[in-house]
């Protein structure tokens, strides 16, 4: 039985590699295919190197694809991300646990006895029963210290609320210890995490979606959206081509940094029907675009001077991209994009 099944399997495996089998997941199949081709390549090179008569190790093949250089220009996140509800609850609970387990606050190392700051501190402690300001009213040494869980709808675990408590505490200290009681000191609150561009839905602004990585997309003259790219010219490295592309498409009014010299991803576009070039006898099958990663430091894209006929540009976060680009294009570029 076993031998029979083995035989059948062997035949199946012989027949399988030519066509994608739905029984095997595609990525695995590609991997095995790729491995096979690598192995074949390795044996080829080994043969070539073993025979000294062959002069060209890499035979020159006329490219049937146009090679493009693309740039994945991104603006990294500017602010910390919003916490998930679980993280908020977890951090808050750990803070209250810490209240019980850490050494008590050494007050007299920070406030000299009898000074106004000391009096102020005592008054505040009487009020909130603990040294920390961001855990609400909770006394870790009292009889009901076990009651350390927040009830539904409590605001104490929200970071905004905690920051507000800190600022209010600072204001109270300033007002209590200052000499003239007439004017109230205002400590500036942190800026909003949403900007004007977010509220207006301005996708051209670099000041939007501060928590996310934004990517520069341009609209070509045919109306479809893509990452900036252009064909590589003769005697030009990928990096140089990318720098040229950036200058030609989005202008020079940007302070950018290209990360390394290697592409981070590629996209292959096949024409529906191969175009035959009579002059050279080359069959153009499509385009291959290789993307180098870039970071924008300052400046803004400017399409008024572009030489590629681009119509529009947008700074998009990862989950907004599928709305603008095709499914195939997105599936090719999405692994280059950061999650956040």
């Amino acid at each position, binding site marked *: 039985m076993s031998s029979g099944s083995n035989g059948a399997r062997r035949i199946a495996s012989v027949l399988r590699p030519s066509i994608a089998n739905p029984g095997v997941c595609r990525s695995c199949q590609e991997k095995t295919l790729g491995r096979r081709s690598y192995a074949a390549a390795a044996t080829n090179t080994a043969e070539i190197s073993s025979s000294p008569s062959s002069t060209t190790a890499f035979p020159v093949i006329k490219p049937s694809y146009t090679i493009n250089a693309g740039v994945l220009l991104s603006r990294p996140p500017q602010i910390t991300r919003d916490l998930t509800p679980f993280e908020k609850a977890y951090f808050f609970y750990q803070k209250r646990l810490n209240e019980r387990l850490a050494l008590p606050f050494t007050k007299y190392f920070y406030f000299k006895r009898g000074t106004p700051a000391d009096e102020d501190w005592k008054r505040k402690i009487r009020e909130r029963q603990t040294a920390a300001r961001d855990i609400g009213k909770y006394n870790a040494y009292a009889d*009901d210290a076990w009651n350390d869980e927040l009830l539904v709808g409590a605001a104490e675990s929200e970071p905004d609320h905690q920051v507000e408590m800190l600022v209010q505490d600072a204001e109270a200290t300033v007002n209590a210890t200052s000499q003239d009681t007439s004017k109230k000191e205002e400590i500036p609150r942190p800026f909003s995490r949403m900007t004007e561009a977010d509220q207006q839905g301005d996708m051209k602004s670099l000041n939007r979606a501060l928590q996310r990585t934004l990517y520069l997309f341009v609209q070509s003259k045919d109306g479809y959206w893509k990452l900036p790219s252009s064909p590589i010219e003769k005697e030009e490295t990928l990096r140089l081509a990318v720098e040229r592309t950036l200058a030609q498409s989005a202008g020079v009014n940007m302070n950018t940094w290209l990360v390394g010299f290697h592409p981070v991803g590629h996209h292959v576009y096949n024409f529906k029907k191969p175009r035959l070039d009579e002059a050279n006898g080359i069959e153009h099958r499509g385009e291959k675009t290789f993307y180098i990663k870039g970071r924008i430091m300052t400046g803004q894209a400017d399409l008024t001077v572009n030489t590629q006929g681009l119509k529009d540009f947008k700074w998009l976060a990862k989950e907004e991209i599928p709305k603008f680009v095709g499914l195939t294009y997105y599936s090719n570029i999405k692994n280059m994009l950061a999650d956040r």
Partner: protein
Amino acid sequence: MAASESSRYLARSLPRAFVPSVRPQGFCVRRNASDQASSRSPAVDLGELESTGALLPGASESEAVKSFDPAALAKGRKKQLPRSRYQFRSPKYDRGPLHPHRPPPPSDPSSRLYVPGPFSLPRVDQTYQSSVASDILTLCYVHNPPGFKPPQKSARLRTWDDSSPYHKNRPLRGPRGGDVLRLLRKPITFNNIPKIERITIHSYVKQAAQENSGWLHVAGMAVQAISNSRVETFKSKTSVATWGIVPGRDTVSVKAELRGENMLHFFGKMVDIVMPRIKDWDGVKGSSGDSSGNITFGLEPENVALFPEIEVNYDMYPPKMIPGCHITIHTTAKTDKDARLLLSAMGIPFYGKMVN
């Protein structure tokens, strides 16, 4: 089972073997588990989950939820529950695995060894995760074409030439010019991107041996204040005749070792607040490092006093007793070059000749 499966394969693949493939073989749209998930509409995904959760803001606001008050409930109870019903106290001693009364694991909040935390998501960590790590991965990528075989390197340990019969069964010799085997630098891939592992703050106070132990106490308080963690003290291992320090007798140094959240907060405030305020400072020397990815630099006493934790009660420290310290940043990089790449991406400036 196996036979039926293979025959199924056979039945499937036989007819297809003779059908010419329509699609070009080189290109096929990749479909992975991730894009299957993303291609489905979020409504379908969320439909499987509960619409309300205890953690979500719009949680169920029923009458039972509103009126729930555990403290009042406990007060209203006439008879208290026996202590053993709600309170577990870990044994004070660990008496080995065969003892019937075992302490809970350290991760259990009732354990005596439990350390709560983390309390926040540090900013430094978020920067690292969102932009620094991927940039380092891109920068350190080395492309090898298919079929590339790395040149054979000679063995790191030398063998003995069998010139003497005594060479038989001897262990291998170390490299020439020293017995130290340097760390091997493996190509940086997605799972070994350099990151900060721990930070050590170390302060050697020679006056602790010469004058009194007050110096050590002040140094310990200062280091504890800037690092959020308790310090350890150490005795001198070496003899320093000019300072009158005898090994094994004089306690001369304090050390704090930071990991995790404490480390990230310390790193953040050191880079963002303290370093820019140091007068006439052009960065960390490029020749610093132990050639295996750990970078050390020193802070003078006046620089340590710039930390906001010391500034806030500067008067409480006796004058001129704030210590200087050495700060070692241990990274998972295997060479100093990688470590410097990481640290300069995180905001530490380097100057001078870069030595690997």
